């Protein structure tokens, strides 16, 4: 199915409590080499048809304005799978 994938991560400077909790759990489980974990979102926008340039433009806009919160998150990638 054609889709646009938007990837969003918490801003580098800000605390990511979820990532921290998972990092601790991994370290407790024996993965001593991991220096940190950050957890973001992977949002798939599905289409019933081919994805167009216009869709990508629109998705980028939505990624910035609606799907992410630019005070605390960054959009790290917007990619297409046709």
């Amino acid at each position: 199915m054609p889709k646009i994938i938007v990837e969003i991560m918490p801003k580098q400077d800000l605390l990511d409590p979820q990532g921290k909790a998972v990092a601790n759990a991994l370290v407790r489980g024996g993965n001593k080499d991991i220096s940190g974990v950050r957890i973001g979102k992977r949002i798939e926008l599905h289409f019933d048809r081919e994805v167009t340039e216009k869709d990508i433009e629109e998705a980028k806009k939505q990624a910035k304005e609606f799907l992410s919160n630019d005070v605390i998150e960054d959009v790290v990638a917007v990619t297409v799978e046709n």
Partner: protein
Amino acid sequence: MFKNKNQPSGVDTVENAKSEPDKDQPWKELGLKQDEYESIKEILGRRPTSSELAMYSVMWSEHCSYKSSKIYLRQFGEKVTPEMKKHLMVGMGENAGVVDIGEGLAVTFKVESHNHPSYIEPFQGAATGVGGIVRDILSMGARPVAVMDQLRFGAPQDPDTTRVVHGVVDGISFYGNCLGLPNIGGETVFDKVYQGNPLVNALSIGALKHEDLQLAKATNPGDLVILFGARTGADGIGGVSVLASETFGDEGPTKRPAVQVGDPFAEKVLIECCLELFHAGVVAGIQDLGGAGISCATSELASNGGKGMKIQLKNVLLRDESLTPEEILMSESQERMCAVVPKKKLKDFEKIVNKWEVEYSVLGEVIDEDRLYIDWGHEEIVNVPPRTVAHDGPVYDRPVEYPKYQDALNADSSSKLKRAETEAAAQLMELISSPNHADKSWITNQYDKYVMGNTALAMPDDGGMMRISEETGLGVALATDANGKYCYLDPYEGARQALAEAYRNVAVTGAAPRAVTNCLNFGSPENPEVMWQFKQATAGLADACQELGIPVTGGNVSFYNQTGETAIYPTPVVGVLGVIDDVARRVPSGWQDDGNNIYLLGTTYDELDGSAWAKDLHNHLGGRPPKVDLQKEKELASLLYGATQQGLIEAAHDVSEGGLGIAILEASLRFNVGARIWLTELMERDGVNLTAALFSESQSRVIVSVGREDDVKFQALCEARGVPVLRIGVTDKENQAVDIQGVAKLDLAAIRGAWAGVLPGLY
């Protein structure tokens, strides 16, 4: 802003400050005024280092230093009689006041604002607001046992209100629920005056045994200063000084400093860890880290104990190694605490924090010298008298001016509004389905009210009530109130009314009011008209506390709640704490049984100025707010206390916004039990017409329901206490309706439909 290229380490040292006296410093960008900068130089006898500048700027900010409000807040202490202090174990000035409730137990409570951060990032702003106030309570040695939230949003239909409502409610719900603290009440008000300045106040209450009391003091030289909890990161750097101490421009917030991100899980672990530390007796002093972070914790602990400290800032555990010393001093990373620990207790301390997997580091120690030294590696970057940072900040007597609009506003009475008595029923229905009077459960259902199993009353009753002792049932009740409209019309009377209403809301639950907290939300102190409002409101509140005989134990001031030239209504949120010897005697706000008599206590005057009827139905705000008679309020409270002690009252609900009409509907909706009501006697006795009978917001009034068998006793009690009492109806379980004779018979299902659907429909 802070880098200094001349130093090999890039750090501005004390030595450097002496050798380079004329270096340009960013005091202005940090929010300091020219004369404030000059007085720092005078204190130090040299220019401050950049680290010292950072410390002074955050600690001398409006939010931390109370520089514009200090001269007014003093009267809360001055207007207190020894009698009022009887139950006060710790008064104003500490992290939170502590009140003796008997049986060797005490409670501590306080309300605080997180308005500005909650506008910028509603979810995290509100969440960290809850986190911050809970740490204040914890730092007194108490186990936090409940929270409340006081919210003011913009116009209900505005799209930005949707953003703020969702974020704020989610944030409070997320943080409070995750901490395991029941939310037992609060306020939700919509008004376009709060559009660019929503108010998010959070209250927390904690319980402790007398001997568990902790203070934020470093008194023993040689004791270790330990920072523990979350690591220090780049979030919220200077948030307090920059954000909460300035007005947003017309275009909204221009500065976007890194927001603070909360981790309630870390805080929950920190709470349990701290309580274990307290009980093991390993800490000699403790301070939470909130606004101004390490700058605040170190200077306050030292200053409070009359001692000094020597700190190695490189020992602070960081989340981000690139932080500069100035940033470390200013960071407002959440979920951190600072403890003073005797050296010989270090092992015990370590054992407990390790059990809870809480990180810690020893920053330095307490010294017998009036000096706070902070080193960065081998370099000295701070060398100051701690008091000058923590307590001897600037104090302003700001210009005060009677507002130009005030006389015209007070002259513009609601008496010109048409009173269409034939439409009274329709107006009542319109009011109950307006966002300010509609069902708030869309919000309150997002809050856990059950956790801990000690909640005796919570939403939608008038006050929240917690059992403190499982053995005896000893408990406390809490209610908060503020009517911004009344305060706008008359800040002095409005503040007294806020206290009166909170006091009454505690009294109706069956508890005896004992202590007060407040959060004073105002516009810019640099506006003399706002300062006048502030002066009036604080005087009103202090006088009223004296009259009621209950002391202010602590509070918080939030200024700069204004967009451009437009300030919010003055909104002094007042919280009253009451004590009840057995929560089993608590009284809910709605009737349950059939055929009980409904009484109105108090007198109804024609007081519609500033009312919901005027504002929500006619979009009118002007005139004079309802009169407050605190002697009557006291008599009413003491009557309610006596009656509940004897178990005479089935339900009690205070009459406030929306008047008697709304109060009756609410008491009927509570358990879905209807009523038959007659108002003619009331209208005759008090000389008011139907509109006033239904919608007047006269104070010192409560409706109660009383079982028939207790009727004689109850009436006699009212008479003995001189409280006006009038039977206005009878509860009616059969007829699913509120039948107001001569007005309308309103179907309970219809009322509920109109009332319950509003917030879900909007959000």
